[in-house]
């Protein structure tokens, strides 16, 4: 069996085994394995970071939805308020308008009545004058008395 017979190569085998094992161990320890570890850590960090980011984003989205809903209800309330206000205002305005119009109409009625009475009076007085005139004319014609001497 060469393994036990070739004793002269034991030193050589041990020497080269030592050399290559030490080279392999040193390079792996100080160069290769840190590189692999760094690569794996980088990826793990990335995954962890993104998982935590995802949670954050989900929370953010939820708060945004809440905010949106709150704003929506607020806007709805505001809108109904505005509508009610507008209704009230319009009602009030129309009432005042109706009142004003009624007043105006009544005023005009009053004015017209006044004018009518004034005109009536005027007409009556005019009529009186005319009647007097025609009466005096008639009397003077009949009585042959000067117009100026007749008084009624």
């Amino acid at each position, binding site marked *: *069996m*060469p393994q036990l017979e*070739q004793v002269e190569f034991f*030193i050589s085998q041990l020497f080269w085994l030592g050399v*290559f094992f030490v080279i392999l161990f040193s390079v792996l320890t100080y160069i290769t394995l840190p590189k692999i570890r760094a*690569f794996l850590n980088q990826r793990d960090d990335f995954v962890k970071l993104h998982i935590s980011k995802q949670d954050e984003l989900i929370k953010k989205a939820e708060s945004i939805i809440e905010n949106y809903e709150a704003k929506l209800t607020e806007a709805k309330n505001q809108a109904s308020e505005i509508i009610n206000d507008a209704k009230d205002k319009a009602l009030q305005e129309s009432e005042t308008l109706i009142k004003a119009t009624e007043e105006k109409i009544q005023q005009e009625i009053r004015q017209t009545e006044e004018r009518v009475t004034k005109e009536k009076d005027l007409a009556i007085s005019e009529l009186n004058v005319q009647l007097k005139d025609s009466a005096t004319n008639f009397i003077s014609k009949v009585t042959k008395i000067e117009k100026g001497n007749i008084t009624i």
Partner: protein
Amino acid sequence: MAKGESPLKQFEIQPIIDINLFGLDISFTNSALWMTVTTAFILIFFTAPFLKSKKTNSVSDLYPSRMQVAAELGFSFINSLLNDTVGKEGKKYFSLVFTLFMFILFGNLFGMIPYSFTFTSHIIVTLALAMGVFIFVTVLGFVKHGVKFFSFFVIPGLPIYMLPLLIPIEIISYLSRPISLSVRLFANMLAGHTLLKVFAGFVSALGIFGILPLVFIIALTGLEILIAFLQAYVFAILTCLYINDALHLH
């Protein structure tokens, strides 16, 4: 293989470059050549995919390439192995277990290439690796626990009168660790490769019926590749267990 050649001839060491240092023969042999190949392959396989340092800081940096996935597979395999046996303290010994596992694994696998040389089939190599592990864990135990390390040989909860019998047994079992560790690997490689060669001899010897041992060799080659993985795994997991023993005693 030429007819009549011993199936053990494949294990012969052949010097390629004769080197003599201070009267010691440290010739560069076929064994050293395949250690070179194994070391170079492991270093390239695990380092090259991570060398490109393009830092675009985009997500595409984080997608591993095919080679990176392959390298990561080896990394996480040893990582989980250490985690399962030693726990969190095992991280410190990661590179040792990783180096041992990869060196033995690719040594075994390159040995499966025809006309190559399996350096793990030599008892001196496996014994050196096992002794290295043995000395390392023993020193580790003494550094961690000092003299208390000797309590490792006393099984807790045992009656006093049993101790004189069991302490020597424990010590013998502890001392035989490097032997069992090295012989297991060496014997598996030796037996597998010898068996392959023996059956390969039958292929030419049996003529037309050589097809039968040929089929057998194909199946056996698959089994040998499995054993190459298995023995590297066994060596690595036993190293982990020994480290665990040294750290926690019982």
